[in-house]
């Protein structure tokens, strides 16, 4: 269990989470990169361009 860097909510990581993996915060939707696993550290992942253009 760790904390979303965007909204501060708890984020549950599954047991075999690995560094580099991207998870999303189920509270705010932010994409978070797993930087470290023990203890768990998350960082906001670089934003993906929306693919439906402008």
């Amino acid at each position, binding site marked *: 269990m760790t904390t979303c860097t*965007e*909204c*501060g*909510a708890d984020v549950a990581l599954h047991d075999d989470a690995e560094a580099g993996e991207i998870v*999303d*915060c189920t*509270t*705010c*939707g*932010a*994409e978070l990169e797993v930087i470290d696993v023990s203890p768990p550290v998350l960082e906001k*992942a670089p*934003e*993906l361009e*929306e693919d439906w253009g402008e």
Partner: protein
Amino acid sequence: MAATPTGDVDVDSEAVSASIVGASGFAGGELLRLLAGHPEFELSQATSREYAGKSVGSVHPPLRGTDLRFSQPGDLESVDVLFTATPHGVTMEHIDEYQDAAELVVDLSADFRLDTEAQYDEWYDGHSCPGKLDVAQYALPEVNRENLAGADVIASGGCNATATILGLYPLAEAGILDGADVVVDVKVGSSEGGAGGGAASSHAERSGVVRPYAPTGHRHEAEIEQWLGTSVSFTCHAVDMVRGASATCHVFPDGPVSNGDLWGAYRGEYDDEPFVRMQAGGSGTYRYPEPKAVAGTNHAEVGFELDASNERIVVFSAIDNVVKGSAGQAVHAANVALGFEETAGLEFAGLHPVGSP
């Protein structure tokens, strides 16, 4: 053909009886649907002058297979709770009759939403029963939960007002709206106009629109101001969907605000709310609140983004106008008032994919 869900409560012995005035309309039809699937209520009557005698399923396909038929509004029997989903002006005219019939009246119109006669004089065409205004409680539990228990009259909010208030309430509570300028740009679906339908709301004319209506002076401004304590510049557009109201609020706060301040305000207000969901950023197709993600449900989606260069907060709020913005809000408030499980009868979580529900 079991067209409707049945709960596990013993309906006959201890159910709370409920009737609906205006049950052939869009909001009334939703009430029917929600109460038919509600574990605590037992439906008694559903009125319609036009369809009296016909089965409720002949108008509302989800109710097919139920035996209930529309009755005349003049033939109301006593019930525990009376839901009224009539056009503006009807409930204020009949409030005594309705209160005679039921201990709790839950009205979906604008008739008892505002606090004072003066507001009705300013925004509507006055009020025919102003003495009852201070008896009524605004339904929206997120802002008025503590006053619902024991209420005699509950006034369900306007759909555009509900979307706007839910979007901005945490900012108001956090003081961020103090001295702020606020523009609210709303997009709504065609069900907001009710089940009537003239030439302008015909499929041929109403399809594919982004059509301004009420560019200024929308009556919901009154409700919004009452709950947020600040006036907003409000403009509404009809767009091509049936259900849904989406409010984009452009807020210019008086001083600097950080992302952390905002998350603090929103999570503080909504983390424990069963029907409000934050949706702010992220990846994939659904990044911000949008009405089709909550269509058919009592959920609201709320999200925001900071615009540093323009010193602006953009807040998005999306609801289904006939559920969270009307019938669902009314049932939610009744649940609170009567001490039922808050989410009772309101558990449907929506569909994916879904077109333009």
